[in-house]
């Protein structure tokens, strides 16, 4: 991490720290806008901070650490796509979406198809799933399932139906978006054909890294919380942290979280700038798989190690647990990552 990024990250850590654990979207979103955090990964020549994916990940980690409610990741993904798509009017869009209007994008793969009834005017049908905070978004960035079209679709119009899908995770408000033959205006299409395919790969990779980075932050914070609790809670006339059975479990978790974090940084390096490339894709999938598994495991153990107090709604443990549970199903879905990595290795063998 360069010194500028470390400074940015530290200030984000401080600001998010002041809002407390599990702060709502309502509390945290204004901070995102006021402090210009959506500009972290935007290239400098477009008026951003030019910190790239590594910079974005440093912020995702902080949001994960505080289980913050702001729909930061989807907005960052959409903004990255707008920058990468290279449209002439992108600076206007950036200006609008980083200061005023909210843009979102699905965190999981839905079923979206394009049919072209009139030449040059495709129609969008199907459902986009796991779209955070869609009710307050002016636009959603979607891609057709075949990857041939990426579009920035205005939400407040006919042909789009929003359905809120509450999950156990209170740090995200997810929606399904149903499109029924919505006609896409030409200027809503960011990319089509092979350019869209490349943009889809970039989005998927960025999304994997975002999930990984958020999970690393959550896992680190939850482990710290748990170890602190064990140091203060006394039973049998001694702090629980004295019992080796518990120390060893914490040490194993620490090693797993450290491994996930080291892999994330290594994967960011391997990914480099070409986020639509195969190397970046594989690196992101690895980071996502290991980090989200580690987070889920820390969460599973943390609840046990807290005893009864962890089962109470007022304790913070469950905020992490529920986010970790959902995380495993975001991105390409929990059941694909391992198989995809094996496929890639076996294809080369």
């Amino acid at each position, binding site marked *: 991490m360069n010194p500028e990024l470390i400074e940015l990250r530290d200030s984000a850590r401080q600001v998010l720290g002041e809002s407390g654990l599990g702060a709502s979207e309502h509390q945290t979103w204004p901070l995102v806008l006021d402090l210009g955090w959506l500009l972290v990964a935007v290239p400098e020549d477009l008026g951003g901070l030019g910190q790239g994916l590594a910079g974005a990940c440093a912020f995702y980690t902080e949001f994960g650490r505080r289980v913050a409610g702001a729909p930061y990741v989807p907005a960052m993904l959409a903004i990255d796509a707008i920058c990468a798509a290279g449209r002439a009017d992108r600076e206007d869009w950036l200006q609008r979406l980083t200061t005023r209007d909210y843009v979102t994008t699905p965190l999981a793969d839905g079923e979206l198809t394009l049919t072209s009834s009139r030449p040059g005017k495709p129609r969008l049908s199907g459902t986009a799933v796991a779209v955070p905070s869609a009710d307050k978004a002016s636009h959603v960035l979607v891609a057709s399932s075949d990857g041939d079209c990426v579009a920035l679709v205005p939400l407040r119009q006919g042909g789009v139906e929003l359905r809120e899908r509450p999950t156990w995770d209170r740090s995200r408000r997810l929606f399904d978006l149903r499109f029924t033959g919505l006609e896409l205006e030409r200027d809503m299409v960011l990319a089509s054909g092979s350019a869209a395919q490349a943009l889809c790969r970039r989005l998927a990779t960025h999304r994997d890294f975002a999930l990984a980075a958020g999970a690393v932050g959550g896992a680190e914070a939850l482990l710290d919380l748990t*170890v602190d609790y*064990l*140091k203060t809670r006394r039973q049998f006339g001694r*702090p629980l*942290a*004295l019992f*080796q059975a518990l*120390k*060893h479990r*914490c*040490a*194993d978790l*620490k*090693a*797993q979280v*450290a*491994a*996930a974090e*080291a*892999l994330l*940084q*290594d*994967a960011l390096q391997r990914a480099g700038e070409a986020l639509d490339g195969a190397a970046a894709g594989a690196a992101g999938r*690895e*980071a996502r*798989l*290991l980090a989200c*598994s580690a987070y889920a495991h820390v969460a599973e153990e943390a609840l046990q190690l807290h005893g009864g107090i962890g089962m109470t709604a007022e304790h913070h443990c469950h905020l992490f647990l529920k986010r970790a549970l959902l995380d495993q199903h975001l991105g390409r879905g929990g059941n694909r*990552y*391992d*198989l*995809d*990595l*094996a*496929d890639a*290795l*076996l294809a*080369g*063998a």
Partner: protein
Amino acid sequence: MDQIPIPTMTTGGNPEALRAEVRAWLQQNVPQGWRAALTGTGQDAFVDAQRDWFQRLVKAGYATPHWSQEWPGGGRSLAEQKVIFEYVARAAAPRLILFFVALYHAACTVMEWGSEEQKRQHLPGILEGRVWCQGFSEPNAGSDLAAVRTRAERRGDRYVINGQKTWSTLAQFADRCLLLVRTDSSGAPQAGLTYLLLDMRSKGVSVRPIEQITGDDEFAEIFFDDVEVPVSDRVGEEGQGWAVAQSTLASERGLTLVELTQRMRYSLARIAGIMRERGVVDDPALRRDLGRLIPKVHAACALADRYLLKRIEGTEVAGDASIVKLNYARTLREFTLLGQRIAGLQGQYQEPFIRGGGMETGNWPFDFMNSYNWSIAGGSDEIQRNIIAERMLGMPREPKNWTLA
């Protein structure tokens, strides 16, 4: 030292140029077909092959990159050392097991603690192929190394040694031994230890190789029966043995695990190949297991690399080394378990094993058993967990003077 030609270091302090040099050298020098040649052989063939490989590495200057500048091949930065280890791993070259204690533990201990006289006496010999072993562990001093009981009694200018060491790797071939002995039992256990450089040919030393569960006999017991050691073979002061032993144990910190994690990374391709050969490449359960292992292997590499970087930058903190080692040991175990699942029943039929072939030789039950080297030796997984919990997470240590309830 005069007899040994100083290798020409064409690349100076430049790791990038060194890459090309090392790669080219390895292409020419890794003995063709060494794996087959060392499969199912006795220790003698292994020892010969190790000596040959060692001589080549010494001549090229690749055996001693960690030694100081005035030594042949020495004066390499940690970054350059890493390059060498990485390429040796990538070339699937033999591991330099027989000389490992000599090159790292003995050399670093003598360089750090030895007198000028001791340096002159021992370091050139190491380059000539003198083999060293480490005599720390005893039947009753394993994880609790400070419990060492082997006695050394001072008589004039000699110590007289009585007692027993165990688990000493390749002691049966050793010329010298790094020996940790007790010279005083009155105070704290650590305070009464002294460190000697024992000539293994001394009268009263006997070595008995231990047959291991793999059929190998890589380690041995050493017995001492009134063995006389000149006081001049002591390193550090009497009673300073614990501190000297700590530097011995820290001597190869980092580099070995860079090499071994890289070897594990390249072995992923091997395991994929074996799935093809065995016709189980489409087995969904195996594919899933393999897919889960891949990021763990890469994370083990990333952790080892990062640890070395921390050492280069001087930012290492207590517990960092334990995380790398624990993580490697666990990942290696998983690797060998998967290897066994892939090999199936076929893998259980006994095949001859290869000596010095690394940790993922493809003889999976053998590799699985060998993986315990890493979870037991050099501070077991449980000891690493204690260190992580206590020194990194700040969880309390057990009280020192507990008694059974």
